[in-house]
């Protein structure tokens, strides 16, 4: 507890307008009329902030819970979808956010010491971190949007500006050469080709999954051939294909050169016959969770701007810096949630 009750020697009675009644002459101006002293007010503010942060965690808790259930039921979707995220940008963003959390913590210390220039520098650095994070997020999101890697039903529309989308004529030619030898893959490609001939954006084949028989594509797709897969472990190797466990050659190749196999996708998911059913679920939960987190970062930007404004106005002192402390707590929680999001989506 670093705060001491302020001496009641201020006579700037309530001009900041708590209410018309705020005319207690023995109160410092920051002190609400219903508090005995600044320390009591500070402790209450902190307690309120912690409760609010608990509600924030629970708000995200629903989404984390949804993530856990979906991942538990369909690990293949998450293994497949996470290839499309850039670990590089994610890692940079994690560093940016961690650094901004550090500058925020330094800012609180500056406020406690009454170092106004230091506080402003720290808050501005934190603000830069927040903008950096949002900028990188913008790069990532716009890439996903151009590739059509979108949540929900929008996933099944042809991408607007894709690097890996193959036009239908080329695709038909390619598939002759690259078709793989198993019956399973052949039948899938047949379904794929049929849809390609119909000149439609390629929609998910209705397939039974390894775990859940309930997973089928959007309505209207149930006519395509249902393929019951055996229990297999899937690995990804180059060309974005999925090999069955029995495919020893592919396994061996993957074991020797995993980074090469994972190198780069050459197939758009909509054109990939080995895409797991309902692959859009990964992007649904990805956009929901990072989107809600992004909204919190935007709110954080507003909070930091407000803190900078108040600092310029000289509202903080070693006796009164509750808003800085609470804003800092909020920023740390935003950071903390990202610390969980990054590995859950990008790494595992």
């Amino acid at each position, binding site marked *: 507890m670093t705060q001491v009750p302020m001496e009641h020697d201020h006579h700037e009675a309530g001009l900041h307008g708590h209410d018309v009644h705020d005319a207690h002459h023995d109160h410092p101006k920051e002190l609400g009329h219903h508090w005995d002293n600044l320390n009591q007010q500070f402790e209450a503010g902190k307690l309120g902030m912690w409760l*609010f942060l608990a509600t924030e965690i629970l708000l*995200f808790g*629903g989404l984390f819970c949804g993530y856990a259930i*979906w991942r538990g039921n369909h690990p293949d979707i998450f293994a497949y979808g996470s290839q499309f995220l850039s670990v590089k940008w994610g890692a940079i963003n994690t560093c940016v956010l961690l650094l901004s959390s550090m500058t925020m913590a330094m800012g609180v210390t500056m406020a406690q010491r009454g170092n106004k220039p230091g506080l402003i520098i720290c808050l501005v650095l934190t603000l830069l971190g927040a903008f950096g994070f949002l900028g990188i997020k913008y790069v990532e999101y716009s890439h996903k949007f151009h590739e059509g890697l979108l*949540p*929900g039903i929008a996933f099944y529309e042809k991408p607007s500006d894709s690097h890996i989308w193959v036009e239908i004529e080329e695709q038909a030619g390619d598939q002759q050469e690259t078709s793989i030898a198993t019956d399973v893959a052949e039948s899938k490609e047949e379904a794929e080709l049929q849809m390609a001939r119909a000149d439609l954006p390629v929609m998910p084949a209705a397939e039974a999954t390894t775990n859940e028989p309930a997973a089928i594509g959007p309505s209207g797709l149930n006519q395509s051939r249902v393929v019951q897969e055996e229990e297999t472990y899937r690995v990804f190797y180059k060309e974005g294909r999925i090999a069955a466990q029995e495919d020893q050659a592919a396994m061996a190749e993957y074991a020797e050169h995993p980074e090469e196999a994972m190198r780069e996708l050459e197939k758009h998911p909509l054109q990939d016959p080995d895409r797991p059913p309902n692959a859009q679920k990964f992007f649904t939960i990805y956009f929901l969770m990072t989107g809600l987190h992004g909204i919190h970062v935007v709110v954080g930007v507003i909070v930091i701007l407000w803190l900078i404004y108040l600092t310029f106005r000289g509202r903080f002192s070693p006796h009164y810096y509750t808003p800085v402390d609470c804003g800092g707590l909020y920023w740390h929680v935003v950071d903390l949630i990202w610390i969980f999001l990054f590995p859950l989506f990008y790494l595992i």
Partner: protein
Amino acid sequence: MTTIPVPPSQPVTPELARDNYLTYTRGIWSWLFTLDHKRIGVMYLCGVLSMFFVGGIFALLVRTQLLTPEGAVFNDNANYNRAFTLHGAIMVFLVIIPSVPAALGNFVLPIMLGAKDVAFPRLNLFSFWLWMAGAVFFILVLVNVDGGLDTGWTFYTPYSTTDGMAFGGVLWAVIGVFILGFSSIFTGMNFIVTIHRLRPPGMTWFRMPLFLWALYATALIQVLATPVLGITVALLFMERLFGMGFFNPALGGDPVLYQHFFWFYSHPAVYIMILPAMGIISELISVHSHKHIFGYRFIAFSSIAIAVFGFLVWGHHMFTSGQSQLINVIFSAITFSVSIPSAIKVFNWLATLYRGSISLNTPMLYALGFIVIFAIGGLTGLHLGTLATDIHLHDTYFVVAHFHYVMMGSALIAMIGGMHHWWPKMTGRMYNENWGRFGFALVFIGFNVTFFTQFALGSQGMPRRYATYNGMVLTDLYHLYHVISTIGSYILALGFFVTAGYLLHSIFAGKRAPDNPWGGRSLEWQCTSPPPHDNFKEAPTVGDCYDYSVLEWDESQQGYKWREDIERPGNPHVSGKDGHA
């Protein structure tokens, strides 16, 4: 501590009457932008009661429709669906959940605690404005924007997410629910911090009136459960608007996941409704029996126990949803365990009544009515918590009767009882006791005729939410029960109109209320009626709030006063002259 002793027997002086919170400042804006918890509480009360009126109209429409097997009101079944959906959604989200904590709690909590205000007055005002905004969204649904709302108050998927199955009003309603959720969260945060940080000297945790314990337990649930509802309806919104597929099996989603998310909030929400009601009853029973509450600690801890258990029983709403038998058994067992702390409370209230000096004032009648109704509502809950009987009773009128006994008959009856109890304090006026007792009799009889019949109706297999019931095997039997139930609902409505009538009359023509009309010992009865703007000039010193031996009847002001032969520990009275600089 400097106190300004003013004898409580001092009659209401003109200065005091002028210096109360109602007349402190004037004009509509001084109300809408007030930071005074008492005014915010009164505004909540007005809002909640208006919405209670609207929800009640829908209830009467629903009951009237069922007068005949073919349906007496709506020629379109979708309109019946709209009516019962709006009845449920308005009553739950806009009436019962904010009724006790936000309306009565806001008014009473800081005064009872001995504080000048809640911890965060601005947040309190903000939460009231959020409530208003949420109400606006429901009014939009009410006027059938985008076709209105017909999913039932639970917004179950896939009804709520599939185009053509539900009307577009779902979108508006879930925005409203989201906003109302945050209103509730902020109220809860405010109460928790207030109780932790604003207790005056002597107000230890175990000297707090039990209403405060109940509000504290409620606030914990509000803070911990409501965010999950927030994210659930946010997901529903995204699903509906963008086809996210979170709950849509065609896109790999899971509709039962929605039920889990929804009930994870909405079962604890049942305790948001009933816990503060129980707190009111603890106060009413003790004050109007003029006897120390029996088993104080047990009642206090049972509130916390109910709050904790309340988080672990949501699955009993989903026994027939296809969840695993093991989970069903576990949820059933935990459900039964909730009845233990509930029964502890009931037995403690009965023990408090035993050999008490009972005054059958209107609030006390509501409290006694509560005990009867809650006992029936609680015990029929056991039928529904039992797996075997629940299969038969699920989605019948038995369920309807059960939750009306608990949510309406218990939570709202307690709220109305509490309103009568604190009415003199809020308005400074006494209502007519005889009309009060008559109104209670109508409400109590009307309620039981309406809903006890429905237990019989449900056990005979009448499903809930049916617009018509002609052509069934038992149509004649159902018809008889429905007619009785509808007549009961008219008696109930008459009771509420009588109540509204004499309460409104009292505001304009009621006798001036004494400071302590019932003989309460908690701090709000030591303020003037109505209380001054600041509640307490200095933080008061607090003793045992259930020790009534220090009070005696004062004929001159028709209220109770502190006995002159006993020294007061500290005087929370605010002087009329010195009240405001």
